[in-house]
């Protein structure tokens, strides 16, 4: 059997190679499309669009790397940062899988279970979108049905309600401070909503880690 060190080394090596190759393909797509259609981007649209998008999402993206990498594990990180939908799909999927397998995220068993969950989730998502794209004509009325719209709009509350029960019931003492803080912030600050929840994840994580450290040092955990 490979030692833990050598397995992790190989995950990092392979993750880097795949990440760079697939990342390059994704980044080259606009270049190739521009070339094929013989057109350059419209400078004004590009600059205005990027100014409205990139500063916020790059800042959030950099903070997300430091927040999510320890939770996703190495294999999970290399996959998630290519396939996306991290907080609304990949991470909850990995957290639930590790919880059910009774493994800790900090262990190698946790690393392996998290990678399996995220890989399966990525494959299933990709396949469902492929089927959806092929069957777009018959599926569109169903997917755009006003009856089903509220269900698709409420995916995050439905997802985190279940996940919260598992984690809060097992960590009641540690849960109180972050939940109170986030409820107060989200209820009292109008700017905090669906569009800005991503920014609050690192805030919640840092705050909870700080509270956990104090409680741990005082022997309360």
């Amino acid at each position, binding site marked *: 059997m490979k030692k833990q060190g050598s397995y992790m080394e190989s995950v990092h090596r392979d993750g880097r190679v795949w990440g760079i190759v697939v990342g390059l393909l994704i980044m080259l797509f606009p270049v190739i499309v521009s070339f094929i259609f013989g057109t350059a981007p419209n400078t004004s649209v590009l600059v205005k669009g990027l100014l409205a998008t990139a500063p916020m999402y790059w800042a959030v993206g950099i903070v997300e790397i430091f927040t999510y990498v320890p939770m996703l594990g190495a294999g999970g990180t290399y996959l998630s940062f290519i396939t996306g939908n991290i907080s609304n799909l990949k991470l909850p999927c990995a957290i639930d899988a590790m919880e059910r397998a009774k493994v800790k995220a900090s262990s190698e068993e946790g690393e392996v279970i998290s990678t399996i969950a995220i890989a399966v989730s990525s494959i299933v998502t990709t396949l469902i979108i492929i089927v959806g794209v092929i069957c777009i004509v018959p599926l569109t009325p169903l997917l755009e049905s006003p009856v089903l719209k*509220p269900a698709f709009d409420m995916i995050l509350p439905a997802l985190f309600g279940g996940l919260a029960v598992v984690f809060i019931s097992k960590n009641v003492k540690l849960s109180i401070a972050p939940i109170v803080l986030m409820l107060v912030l989200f209820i009292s600050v109008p700017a905090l909503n669906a569009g800005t929840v991503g920014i609050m994840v690192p805030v919640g994580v840092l705050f909870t880690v700080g509270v956990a450290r104090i409680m741990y040092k005082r022997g309360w955990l």
Partner: protein
Amino acid sequence: MEFNVNHPILFVLVGIIIAAVLGQSTYFLVKAIRRAKELGIAGSTVKSTVISSAIFTIAPAIAILVGVVALSKSLGLALPWLRLSVIGSITYETVAAGNALTAAGLEASATIVDPSIFVSVLWVMTIGIAAGIVLVPFVTKKIQNGMLKMGMKDKKWGEILNTAMFLGMISAFLGYVFCDVGLVFSGDTSGLIPVCVMLVSAVVMAIFGGLSKILRARWMEDYALPLSLVLGMASAIPFTAWLR
């Protein structure tokens, strides 16, 4: 080549990238399953991880598909197919495309006919979220090694740290669920819809978690989260009709 948002060449190019993404996921899946065997993780645990992760993914993936349909009106089908299969999320892609379309003075529902505008939108959507793609291959090992060292120094703290991180993320999303509750004071009860949905999902999870322990039925545990997700989402339909 004459431009069209649904030009076959776009589908071919996107297909190649999607195949690479599938290749990467499959490679890591096989690698992790092999390692699980070496570590002595029970085959039944691996199997249940695979099955329940797949089932859990169905509802969110369909929600992502809804995003593909919405964006396809202006961008054609190939571009949203790519963008929602790779880094980003429904929220990001919609915002990024919207920002670029607004900069071009176009409505979100108008199909793009100018190739220059199309590639501008494409560049904005790609570069706007590229931080992860650019940095992850170079910083992940350092962050992971730092965490491992911390865990080795004090194992108990290492485990608490991970739990604290999960709880921090969950608490942020719980806060978000309550963000429009204040509207009740102005007579608008729609802010209660996400709260009710979250409660339904939490109750389903608690019932299934409790039953699986009482009946010692492991399979129930495997399906508890997917079921709480789907029933929570389904409850949004009557709650929306009632509270909006």
